[in-house]
């Protein structure tokens, strides 16, 4: 048997609320009808895929980041730690060392450069990774604890976990956070192809442009899915044509989709045309990735 590497698809968008979750969950559920499929929710700040995927929970694991903890007895108050920390997460106030754990990037510099060993690193829980299975579908949800400010370390850990325990699943779909900055880059770094979901409005276009530039920066092939097709104007299509970006599918605005989505229901088995759209999307991606 030839062991092909898995196909990893990132579903992203600049603007929020364009339909990333709709596309990710429906694509994953539809593809899993015929082959083992993995869906990973990397929108760790607001993970919503679980509302659409019902299955059996296999495991829930706590995820930690490492933070320094002050050992008052060992400390000589030399001040090296607070001078070292670029994030102002370790601060010396008189004879007290304060650690602001939400600012800490876990670089270990303060801990390992402390001559007295007074800042040992300790585990701090930042979130959870949950594994759920439903038939051929394996679903992984990564969820950041409220109050934690940094999504990136948890996203990295989720990727590592997927590679270690589910690396053999041939089709992998990653639902990414909105925006264009660090969490999106961390989410899409190791995928083969990025689908940018947008809507045909000025906001949709503006944020699509930014997302395209970000993906160019990290050398990812992209395709666009226009959701709520028909609500706005044709500027997004024109932009894609001029920029040479393939439009993989246009999902027509349909109040029934909005209603099904609002109730946490999948739409691919209820809305005609949806399966054709999903087929077109996956075929187009396979073609591009094969060529590369």
């Amino acid at each position, binding site marked *: 048997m030839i062991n092909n590497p898995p196909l990893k698809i990132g579903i992203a968008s600049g603007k929020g609320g364009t339909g990333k979750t709709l596309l990710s969950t429906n694509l994953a559920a539809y593809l899993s009808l015929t082959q083992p499929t993995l869906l990973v929710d990397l929108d760790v700040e607001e993970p919503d895929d679980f509302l659409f995927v019902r299955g059996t929970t296999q495991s829930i694991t706590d995820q930690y980041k490492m933070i320094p903890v002050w050992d008052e007895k060992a400390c000589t108050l030399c001040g090296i730690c607070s001078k070292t920390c*670029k994030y102002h997460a370790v601060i010396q106030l008189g004879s007290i060392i304060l650690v602001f754990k939400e600012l800490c990037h876990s670089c270990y510099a303060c801990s390992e450069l402390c001559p007295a060993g007074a800042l040992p690193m300790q585990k701090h829980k930042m979130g959870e990774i949950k594994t759920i299975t439903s038939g051929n579908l394996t679903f992984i949800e990564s969820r950041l604890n409220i109050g934690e400010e940094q999504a990136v370390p948890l996203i990295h850990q989720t990727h590592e976990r997927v590679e270690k325990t589910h690396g053999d699943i041939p089709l992998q779909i990653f639902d990414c956070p909105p925006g264009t900055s660090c969490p999106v880059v961390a989410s899409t770094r190791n995928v083969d192809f990025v689908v940018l979901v947008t809507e045909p409005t*000025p906001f949709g276009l503006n944020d699509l442009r930014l997302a395209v530039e*970000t993906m160019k920066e990290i050398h990812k092939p992209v395709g666009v899915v226009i959701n709520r097709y028909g609500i706005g104007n044709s500027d997004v299509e024109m932009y894609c044509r001029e920029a040479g970006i393939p439009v993989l599918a246009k999902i027509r605005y349909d109040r029934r989709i909005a209603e099904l989505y*609002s109730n946490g229901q999948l739409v691919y088995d209820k809305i005609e045309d949806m399966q054709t759209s999903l087929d077109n999307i996956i075929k187009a991606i396979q073609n591009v990735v094969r060529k590369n």
Partner: protein
Amino acid sequence: MSSERINEIVILSGKGGTGKTSIAAAFSVLAGEEAVIADCDVDAANMHLLLKPDFAGSLDFFSGELAVLNQDVCIRCGKCADVCRFNAIPFIENQYTISPLDCEGCGYCEKVCPSFAIVMKERKSGKVYTSTIKTGGIMVHARLDIAAENSGKLVAKVKKDAKDLAKAGNKEYIIVDGSPGIGCPVVSSLSGANYVVLVTEPTMSGLHDLIRVYEVIKRFRIKAGCIINKSDVNEAQSREIKEFLLAEQIDHLADIPYDSAFSSAMIEGKTVVEIQSPRKAQVEEIWKQIKIITNKNNTI
């Protein structure tokens, strides 16, 4: 009166795409010269599309640092790569190279390098603009460089500039458009706020994300109100949101039914209060209500 506090109103949603920016921009037009506008959704800023700022003032924004390695001095000992927790110093073609996308600027490598081959340099991460918008009001906005980090710090900078301008100009309000999520940009946009307007939609994800972002708001002890946008898409979900608002004592500001007027206005580069539709009077009414609530809170 100069001793009066400025009302800082932050518009948030948790979930993206609920209509947060469309509504914040409409408030901005209604507030006119009474307010300074701060677009703190620096990741995917959109307010400028409706408010037409003139980009008159612009300033580079630096945040964080980046390790820069001088190959002429490097002795290839690999100590830097050993201590880097971000795998940002791969060994490629016989030399250690800094990957700017992975470097988080902690400076540990600089500290351990025996040949002083690494220096930390300031990192430009975007631009901050001060503009006059079409109403004659002032707006502070920003553009994060592509794939840049630290949008939390840029948010803090936009807010600080907006506050300074509001004080200098004796403005009554600062209207802040926040970003989706619950992470550092959202936390940054909340500091110093007097009132949060939550814009949500009656979907299971809308409510789930609303609950999470409200947990963050509660930690700041800031009063909040909520607008249920596209409220008629799912009446049952709308009711569930209202129950949550009641339980948490969040002001229920309005139900706005799904209306294509928002996208029609957007395509014309306008906010919903600048075209004729039933939404115009409704959004005007909501803004009036928010002014009453925040002024009352402020005098208590």
